[in-house]
């Protein structure tokens, strides 16, 4: 059974600091997604990583995928309050859209 684990589960940051969220998964896959969820809201797609070594960046967020290590990272640069949310990684289990989600990382950015 595919397992997806994120760490940390909770992250309190100061504005301006950098940090990385890690997403490990237990079986082979080369499709990984990052989503953002604000409290009481639905999920918003951030990044789609489709091959080993893929790197994507949007604003202060950068995501990468290492399929050999079964690891994805979401790096936050110079955090701002607007980035406060819960971030989920999800792995496509069978290349057919069956997503297995991690537990989520609740990010709080404080002034």
């Amino acid at each position, binding site marked *: 059974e595919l397992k*997806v684990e994120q760490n940390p589960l909770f992250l309190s940051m100061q504005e301006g600091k950098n940090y990385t969220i890690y997403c490990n998964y237990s079986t082979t896959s080369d*499709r990984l*997604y990052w*989503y953002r969820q604000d409290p009481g*809201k*639905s*999920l*918003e*797609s951030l990044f*789609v990583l*489709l091959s080993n070594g893929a790197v994507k960046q949007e604003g202060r967020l950068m995501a990468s995928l290492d399929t050999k290590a079964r690891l994805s990272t979401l790096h936050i640069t110079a955090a701002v309050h607007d980035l406060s949310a819960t971030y*989920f990684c*999800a792995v496509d289990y069978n*290349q*057919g*859209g*069956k*997503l*297995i*989600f*991690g*537990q*989520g990382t609740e990010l709080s950015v404080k002034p």
Partner: protein
Amino acid sequence: EAGVAQSPRYKIIEKRQSVAFWCNPISGHATLYWYQQILGQGPKLLIQFQNNGVVDDSQLPKDRFSAERLKGVDSTLKIQPAKLEDSAVYLCASSLALWTDTQYFGPGTRLTVL
């Protein structure tokens, strides 16, 4: 482009009652998904449709949950009878095809079972 629509947004029922949720995917999206998100957890896939056929329902509790996607567009998810542990947000998502890279999520229906 209109997003995924869901209704109702909130529902409160007593245990053993039945409830139904409705989803209208993004126009032209062949693949539709229903997820259950329990508070504090990531979404869990319940069922996946391609057009009006079921692709995967391995995690759907079939003794009480059912879903259909008539005509390959709208979908309904039903719970009958509901249990306390069914309290969750039920999210509908759609994508262009099974192998398309992004699933787009609707706002969800928050179900509370008392």
